[in-house]
């Protein structure tokens, strides 16, 4: 049971350092993965998550006490945390792992769970907001797995997040195939953010202004190792092959609809009978 009447909320925002969205992806020379010797930045969906957390606090200053950014990544991921701090997060946690390790969603979810349980002693986490997927693997699994492991409700593909008056739940509008769905989740909850929040103009990640970049220097980053959390991040999946998609070949022109249907039949695409 939560102490009433004022229960202050702590938001955790996991962020991931990925290859920058604007970079042209190439397979690396040894064919084992993509060329990572390029510019990296924060996963754009996670940027939206940070922005959403900061806006929630701007809307309800009395309710949100702390926004903590966390990343599980190599040493260079500190830059990503600094960006989150410059955007408005109060503090950050860096779980450092070796450069060579490419963690999988389940591993990350387990690590986040271990961290959340560890944080219960200090200040419990009430809301986890993260990007719905990372643009490098497009897995889209971590948020859901985390909710499952913690046995918390989950609201994925969120385009709008509203904390209820009594601060015991969140109302989340989700983007689903059929349209939009609004659900109410009791806190603590995992929310994953969708790109849509940008287009509906509810969320456009702020540029880290220069004064905020300078302020971010003074905000604390706690360093942890994966052993501190007692989680094994060994990959369970083995990548067998990595290759570029086949080069596009030109199409052919058809003279009329009959020819089009004939060509489609040739290609094995037949009509579905009612």
């Amino acid at each position, binding site marked *: 049971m939560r102490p009433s009447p004022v229960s202050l909320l702590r938001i955790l925002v996991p962020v991931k350092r990925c290859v920058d969205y604007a970079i042209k992806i190439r397979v690396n020379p040894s064919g084992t993965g993509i060329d990572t010797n390029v510019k990296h*930045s924060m996963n754009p969906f996670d940027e939206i998550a940070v922005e959403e957390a900061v806006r929630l606090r701007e809307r309800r200053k009395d309710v949100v006490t702390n926004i903590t950014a966390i990343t599980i990544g190599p040493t260079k991921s500190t*830059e990503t945390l*600094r*960006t989150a701090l*410059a955007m408005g997060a109060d503090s950050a946690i860096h779980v450092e792992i070796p450069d060579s390790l490419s963690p999988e969603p389940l591993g990350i979810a387990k690590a986040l769970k271990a961290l959340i349980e560890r944080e219960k002693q200090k200040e419990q986490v009430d809301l986890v907001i993260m990007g719905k997927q990372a643009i490098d693997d497009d897995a889209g699994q971590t948020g859901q797995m985390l909710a499952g492991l913690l046995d918390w409700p989950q609201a994925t593909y969120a385009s709008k997040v509203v904390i209820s008056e009594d601060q015991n739940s969140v109302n989340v509008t989700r983007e689903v195939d059929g349209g939009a769905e609004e659900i109410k989740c009791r806190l603590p909850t995992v929310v994953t953010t969708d790109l849509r929040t940008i287009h509906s103009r509810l969320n456009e990640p702020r*540029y*880290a*202004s*220069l*004064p*905020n*970049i*300078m302020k*971010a*220097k003074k905000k604390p980053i706690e360093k942890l190792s994966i052993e501190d959390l007692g989680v094994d991040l060994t990959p369970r999946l083995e990548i067998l092959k990595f290759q570029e998609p086949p080069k596009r070949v030109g199409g052919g022109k058809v003279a009329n609809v009959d020819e089009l249907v004939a060509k489609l039949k040739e290609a094995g695409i037949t009509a579905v009978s009612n």
Partner: protein
Amino acid sequence: MLRIAARIVCPAFKNVPTAARTRAFSSSRVAASHIASLDNFSEEEEMLRDAVKRFATDVVGPRVREMDEKEMMAPEVIKGLFEQGLMGVEISSDFGGAESSFTSAIIVIEELAKVDPSVSVLCDVHNTLVNTIFRKHATPEQQKKYLPQLAQSKLGSFCLSEAASGSDAFALQTRAEKKADHWLLNGSKMWITNSFEAEIFLVFATIDPSKGYKGITCFIVERDMGIKIAKKEQKLGIRASSTCSLDFDDVQVPLENIIGGEGLGYKLAIEILNEGRIGIAGQMLGLAQGAFDKSVPYTFQRKQFGKPVGEFQGMQFQQAEAAVQIEAARLLTYNAARRKEEGKSFVKEAAMAKYYSSVIAQKVSGAAIEWAGGVGFTRETGIEKYWRDSKIGAIYEGTSNIQLQTIAKFIQKEYS
């Protein structure tokens, strides 16, 4: 010749394993010093570069063409610059600034110039000329009043040149007469950047023509004290940056609005122009890089005679040469900036950086048009704009001849 032949034949040299040779070479360098290479930036500086790049691409980029065609700076751009803290880069956080390094200011100027040199010069003049004079020479009362405004909302302008005094700056004639409770300013200024939008003007006037340059004094004049815009120039390049002639007709300026002391304006102006030079070097550097970045990708898409034009050796050599020139300009610029930060003498290096950057900016932007062919010549792609914008680099904040003269003076001092 014989020695070289002997070395090739010499068995002892041939038998030294490559690894040992390299190790011997590298360990001697490590032992020597831990001084970093010239293109090193702090984490904050890198973050700043990324943030400005995004701002420039998202907010400035879509407006560049319209601003150029209309010869007008979009208010949203100026507002955005203030909101991002880019107009108070070196100002103390006590006054609402970002309290960052001089190099950070140069980074901002460079990144803005990659997208629009007009926006870059607006930010450059404001930061490196106006803000710095207030930071270094204003009284505590003046700083308390003006620095927060300059950091957060009001654009500044630097008024030195006149119709009859450009390179010969200190032959200026604008007159300031001391009255009972104010200074009375009369005269006119020409070629003043930012003047159309600015609210705070630093005006150099003489309080005593008989004293020559020792009469020149720097005044803080606010727009509502009666400054008149006589004419807005129509220019070849940096068209969105306002360049106006100003008239001062019996403008009354409070007695306390002198910066740096009576008759000390000359020294103040010389010092500040030396720093400002590095800013222009940064602008020209960004311009060259921006033109390069816009044109080169196109050369790998445009196919003629069966392959991308960028794969022809003639093109490759030109692109390589341009890349070398940009890198050289970059190192000159940032080294001059760091020298200034370290308190080392930097006047010669600043002159070299400004001179060289403006020269290669013209060359690279001109080549960029040719690489893109007909498409480069049309205004639509924005490549030709860089070439038009680059011309002013050799002219303002000290013409190329003045820079060469400055450098030559150092040579003469050293060698004669």
